[in-house]
């Protein structure tokens, strides 16, 4: 931290807290944002460069991430691929909802305890529902 010696003022309550919807979505916003950044953007680059590389490289991408036609290690990576892709869609919807919540808080609205807790809970409800609808659409059509 900053090198100033001696005592500087600290919040007296750093260890006194309990779980609540607002602090849950606050840390979820960070986790999902960084998950999207590190995992999501890596997947995006793998996908787009595999397409750019031609039919064979795109097939390699599909085989490792989803299809696993050759068995062996691919069975594990394709299972992981499905978990990651579903996880990324959830992370996106959660981060999008809490991001919009940030916009509301930025203009100074939504700080009343009840409203804050309600909208925080609703972001989670939204992300779970949107992820379910998205994948139902992918798998059922």
């Amino acid at each position, binding site marked *: 931290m900053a090198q*100033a010696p001696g005592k500087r003022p600290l919040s007296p309550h750093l260890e006194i807290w309990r779980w609540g919807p607002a602090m849950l979505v606050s840390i979820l916003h960070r986790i999902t944002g960084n998950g999207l950044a590190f995992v999501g953007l890596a997947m995006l680059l793998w996908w787009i460069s595999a397409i750019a590389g031609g039919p064979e490289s795109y097939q390699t991408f599909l085989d490792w991430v989803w299809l696993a036609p050759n068995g062996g290690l691919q069975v594990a990576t394709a299972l992981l691929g499905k978990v990651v892709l579903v996880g990324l869609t959830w992370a996106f919807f959660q981060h999008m909802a809490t991001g919009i919540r940030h916009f509301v808080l930025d203009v100074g609205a939504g700080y009343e305890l009840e409203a804050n807790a309600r909208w925080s809970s609703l972001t989670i409800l939204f992300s779970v529902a949107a992820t379910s609808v998205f994948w139902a659409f992918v798998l059922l059509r």
Partner: protein
Amino acid sequence: MGNGTSIGRVRGLGSSHHGTGHFLSSRLTAVGNLVLIPFLMVSLLLMPSHDYATVHAWAAKPLPATALILIMINTFYHARLGIQVMLEDYVHEDGGKIAAWLFINFVPFAGAAFGIVSVVRIALGGA
């Protein structure tokens, strides 16, 4: 940093005056994401199949190719700004700070450049 007087010990520990620009850029790029990422997801959802021919033909069209390149610029920049905030919260040693500074100033731009080259290659022929 000074080590004698009280004022000498706190000089240089204050704001670097880059915060407002960072805050606004992260909001601006967030609005960009709000348009671009749903566009990508809905496009993927509506594709008749995800084989090479379909996906390649889609990405080669002007509108999707433009959106993909904008994602490489806007979303990578949004992520770069966000990762910086995360690292500022958790990395406190000088060595780690230098590593973090190198990371956020090289890796996102390298990734974005690689993504743009890929989209251009798809859109303008090549493979």
